[in-house]
């Protein structure tokens, strides 16, 4: 049902007729075939295989609840950024400034909390900064007609620089007692499991519902697919693209706020890894680099795979030097799989 935008012209809610026809042509076992036809099935299977392999190799430590508390909190912070990046990739755009946005927005929040402003107000300012950064990215990209890769590479440097100017590079720490809001954002729920996990999954579900069930959601696919067709179909292309940038900016800032809740401190260097990891997670989860395809389920699974690699390799007794090499292999293998499966499902286009 994610292919609706590729057919080009229908801004109607997803769930298209093509799928029904194919299922009936294949006869019975509709559920099994529908499962196999889902873009995410392959990558979920990869995730399950990795989980099983790590669990076997780690002698029962990898699949412990305690370890998954750690994995899910790392995944949640990357995952919230990835939701926005995936949404943007579906719309055919990139955001390389999410890491800088993450650090800058959360640093302003941390400084405000440290200076005894109400934490709620600090969070609102943080999200507003994120939205503002996204808006600038979107407007510059759309109005000046610059590739978003370049726009956001520029704003990545810009906001990294501004962050260093504001903080002098120092880490901002919020010493205990921790304000309640920070615990709500990233505090411990039980054992090592943190509230971040709920924020991540809740946001992914919400954005997923918007993408799959609303007209606006369909616009994101449409502008990322055949843009000329989207224009003909009356999709407000410019507005949709800017909206995607703003959403991505807000989500990056929120991820920063969540990590501030988790760690109690923030610095200019904390977000630096996210821009590339979020793109990697989106791509592993099935987002097409050129837009028009992808899903929130894929973004969640892609993030989870990256997040469990680190811990899985360590607990299996493998040197962490392998982590980046394995990420590289999985990234390329996943894209190869998505491309192949995509072609097979659509009958070789």
């Amino acid at each position: 049902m994610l292919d609706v935008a590729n057919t080009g012209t229908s801004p109607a809610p997803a769930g298209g007729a093509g799928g029904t026809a194919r299922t009936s042509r294949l006869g019975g076992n509709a559920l099994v075939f529908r499962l196999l036809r889902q873009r995410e099935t392959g990558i979920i299977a990869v995730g399950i295989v990795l989980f099983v392999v790590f669990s076997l190799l780690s002698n029962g430590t990898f699949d412990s609840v305690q370890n998954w508390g750690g994995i899910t909190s790392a995944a949640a912070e990357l995952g919230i950024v990835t939701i926005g990046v995936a949404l943007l990739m579906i719309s055919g755009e990139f955001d390389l400034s999410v890491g800088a946005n993450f650090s800058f927005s959360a640093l302003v929040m941390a400084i405000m909390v440290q200076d005894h402003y109400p934490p709620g107000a600090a969070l609102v300012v943080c999200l507003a900064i994120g939205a503002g950064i996204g808006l600038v990215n979107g407007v510059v990209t759309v109005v000046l007609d610059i590739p978003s890769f370049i726009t956001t590479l520029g704003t990545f440097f810009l906001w990294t620089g501004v962050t260093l100017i504001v903080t002098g590079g120092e880490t901002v720490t919020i010493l205990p007692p921790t304000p309640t809001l920070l615990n709500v954002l990233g505090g411990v729920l039980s054992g090592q499991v943190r509230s971040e996990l709920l924020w991540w999954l809740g946001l992914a579900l919400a954005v997923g519902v918007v993408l799959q069930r609303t007209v606006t959601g369909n616009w994101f696919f449409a502008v990322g697919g055949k843009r000329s067709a989207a224009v003909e179909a009356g999709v407000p292309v410019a507005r949709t693209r800017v909206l995607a940038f703003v959403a991505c900016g807000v989500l990056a800032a929120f991820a920063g706020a969540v990590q501030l809740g988790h760690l109690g401190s923030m610095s200019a260097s904390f977000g630096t890894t996210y821009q590339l990891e979020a793109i990697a997670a989106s791509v592993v989860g099935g987002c097409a680099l050129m837009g028009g395809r992808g899903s929130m389920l894929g973004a969640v699974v892609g993030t989870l795979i990256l997040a469990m690699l680190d811990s899985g390799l360590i607990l299996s007794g493998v040197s962490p030097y392998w982590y980046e090499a394995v990420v590289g292999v999985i990234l390329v293998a996943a894209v190869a799989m998505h491309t192949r499966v995509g072609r097979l499902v659509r009958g070789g286009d």
Partner: protein
Amino acid sequence: MQVVRPVRYRGDGDERGPRRRRGKWAARLAALAVTAAAAGGYLASASAASASPRAGGPLTFYFVSHGCPTDPFWPPVWNGAADAGKRLGVRVDILHITSSECGSTAAEVNLLETAIAAHPAGIATTVTDPTAFSSALKTAAKDGIPVVVFNSAPTASGQPSATNPFLAYIGQQNYSAGQGLAQEAVREFGLSKGAAVVVVDHEPTNISLTQRLEGVRAAFRAVGIKPTVVNTSDDISQGASIVSAYLQSHKKLAAVLTLGTTGTDEVVQGMNTAGAHLKIGAMDLDSTTLSYIERGIVAYTVDQQPYLQGYFSIVELYLDATEGAAPVSIATGPVFLTSQNVKTLAKYVNHTGF
């Protein structure tokens, strides 16, 4: 990775017949079957799995650090831990963040949480932030896993607290190292009140360097010197160009101090670019800094003996696990290395890889 199998149909690109369709479903069904079989195997073995990691094997210790794999400071630390493990006949798993995660505190906290989940006989870790490691350290304490901190402690004093519980700190007191760096500069370069001194900070977000800087400021304050801090980055060529630009606009500097090996490289390269000649006092030691001292480019460096930090951490954890000995804090520095004593220290330096 069996699920990638559909790739095998590469050659069938133009075929549109039923064989092709049957093939693709068969491939994916096979992939699912493999997954299901693996899952079944896992479930069967999970019940048999032991509750403790690597039961019956040697004692296992985790050694967690924020060291970038590309930073030459760290291999001696890791060598020290590995050597101790070899001599004691225990397993030491050395965990460090990846090169793309340099500077990410969250990444190191994640490693520490993974190490705790493995319930090893002991953990040595750096703590680079006053609050970020708190929850993980408390969990380790609650689970009865002995933790010693090396290299970077959450406070300048190196003392544990209710927020950051651990057993001992093995490393340099950064504040006193900073004081030593400044006092040696006053002695060595004959600095007096009002002298123009620059301190290059290549990792402004690192709490250890901030503590060193505080020590430098305090020692200089006592003699009436107010140093200027120039912030650079871990990127040596970028840092060198910042230093070079600064030197070209500030020609009359009495001395330049650095807070680590990366900063030292930046200052020496920046100085060469600017064509300046400066009195340099450095901190930490790697092969480049050593050669700078031998060649008289750098007057002295404050060494924290990183090899000992790795080695003693494992020894202390081992004695705690086997003999019940309580780990104690050890100051591995500051040790001053100058052109006078560089030859006598050369043997240790060569053996340890610093």
